[in-house]
């Protein structure tokens, strides 16, 4: 049966907690060591279906670098049956993986442009691969900026990595928190305030947005106010998904199937749907 339909058995090579509710799973294909097979190559923005024995299967974005050929990383928040079961897995244990599926961030369009990546909460995970890929072709991109909003200090993802990026010169990183605590010296406010504070050259900007739907809607609005056209903005959408290959019907979003037409959409394709309730 097609590997898109039948999961392959992969092994957990590393497990780490990122925040109290969120963890990263590095997964490798057992054959990669023995038969020098390559991993299923993926494009930043794509996702895998992760299967836990006896529990079920869920869509999870790939959050590692596309150049990492030994393992694929997934960053997951515990929210229900399958994600809780994924959190119980230990290095050396197995899981099933199908994928990668879906559309990717249009990085080729960033050449010569100002690339602004906006992430809210866990939305940083699906854009991290595109950050890696952008850094790898940094000389071809005019400027690279990450605007990241998290709820509270303890929920900042990949804190060490963000810090190392902040101290370098290749990517500008701005972080804001919804709730201020004593441990936080930085900015407080919604992520759109970071967009507002940017001095954008509207004609040369490419914006990639990933986070809760309401955050993407407001962020896109803010970019439009700043003079970007809808065609310069991309968002990544999420809907209940049972199969990831266009058969189950659950992820339909107006005329689109999020699994095969998305999850990454150019904003003009989904703008009116995003502004409609109960689609």
């Amino acid at each position, binding site marked *: *049966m*097609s590997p*898109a*339909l*039948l*999961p*392959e*058995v992969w092994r957990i090579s590393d497990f780490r907690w990122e925040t109290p509710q969120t963890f990263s799973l590095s997964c490798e294909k057992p054959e990669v060591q023995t038969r020098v097979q390559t991993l299923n190559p993926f494009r930043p923005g794509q996702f895998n279906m992760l*299967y836990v*024995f*006896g*529990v*079920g*299967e869920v869509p999870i974005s790939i959050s590692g670098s596309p150049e990492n050929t030994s393992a694929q990383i997934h960053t997951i928040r515990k*929210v*229900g049956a399958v994600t809780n079961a994924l959190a119980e897995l230990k290095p050396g244990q*197995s*899981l*099933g993986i199908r994928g990668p599926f879906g559309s990717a961030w249009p990085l080729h369009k960033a050449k010569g442009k100002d690339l602004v990546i906006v992430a809210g909460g866990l939305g940083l995970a699906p854009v991290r691969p595109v950050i890696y890929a952008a850094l790898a072709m940094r000389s071809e991109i005019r400027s690279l900026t990450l605007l990241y909003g998290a709820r509270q200090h303890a929920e900042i993802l990949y804190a060490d990595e963000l810090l190392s990026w902040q101290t370098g010169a290749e990517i500008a990183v701005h972080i804001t928190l919804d709730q201020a605590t004593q441990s936080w010296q930085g900015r407080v406010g919604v992520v759109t305030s970071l967009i507002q504070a940017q001095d954008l050259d509207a004609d040369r900007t490419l914006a990639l947005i990933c986070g809760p739907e309401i955050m993407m809607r407001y962020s896109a609005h803010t970019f439009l106010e700043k003079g970007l056209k809808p065609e310069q903005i991309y968002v990544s959408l*999420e*809907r*209940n998904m*049972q*199969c990831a*290959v*266009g*058969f*189950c*019907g*659950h992820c*339909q979003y*107006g*005329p689109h*199937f999020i699994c*095969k037409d998305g999850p990454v959409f150019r904003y003009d394709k989904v703008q009116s749907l995003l502004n*409609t*309730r*109960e*689609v």
Partner: protein
Amino acid sequence: MQTEVVLLQRLHLDLLLSQLQAAGYQTVGPVVRDQAIVYDRIQSTADLPMGIGDIQGKGSYRLRSRDDAALFGYVVGPQAWKKYLYPPRQLLMRAEQNSRGLQITAPDQEVPKYAMIGVRGCELKAIQIQDRVFLEGPYSDDFYRERREQIFILAVNCTEPGNTCFCVSMEAGPAAGPGYDLAITEMLETAEPCYLARAGSAKGAELLKHCNPSHAPATLLEKENALWTAAAAQMGRSLNPEQASAALKSGYESTHWKDVGERCLSCSNCTLVCPTCFCSGVQEVTDLAGTSSERWREWDSCFSLNFTLTAGRPIRQSPGARYRQWISHKLAFWQDQFDQSGCVGCGRCITWCPVGIDLTSEIEALNALQTKT
């Protein structure tokens, strides 16, 4: 190439059935069960609903006895052929977890070989619509494909459409379009019906040859043509697909959905009976020892609340939003997704809706609202 039309008698149909069985086919067709016509195994024409017709309307279905010996004198019942190609429950995979680790295997299942007897034009088109969903996208569904590749289709051209039918609007009938192996028209000229038959495939032609049939007389062919023309003019309903799609797109946020939502029970009947509806969910079933597990796919419906459960809550919470999704998918979004309509005009969803919601009237109402404002 002009297909040759031959004349068959009922005994020839029995001959065809036994030949199909000898070739390893399970012959399935219409039978009467629980006061409805459903599809099940048949052995011979004696199993067919002889002399039985039906009366259909919004939210109503009744069998009636006809005053002839028609074998195919009914319209369409609550079941669609999809149950054979895309079963309500399908084992997708097995997993074992033991000392050797995790193993995942595809189910090893025998693929049934069906000969479908009595497929109407609308139903043939519905099968082709599901082909596009399951076979012609970026991925192909192996379970569907294996069954689909083996089927034999004996189509029956419609001559007496029902009150909820509108296949003419959807270009799906009353005569069956290409894609069948054999197609027949039941002619009720004489006490014992006779059948005009056409082969649509080499398999069909081969079978016909064994019947040693005679050429159809020209007079009978003229009568057949007249029957089709009359049938096309007798459709109980009609719909303009382009207008419907445009009305749904411009009326996506209409107040009309709230109105439908107050009538719709979210019972899912319409999606179950619809021959093109394809949505499914998966279920993980584990054995008591916890060492083996199975993944089953089951028919699901966009009318169930948890269908859109995402990040802890269902997206389409109101019944009106769920009805809007269903009808918009059928008559508008399907075009965007698969380059054709998702409706064949079989009328099942109208007949089997317990509260008599009729998609053609909902489109009219939506249109009326839009032209008013």
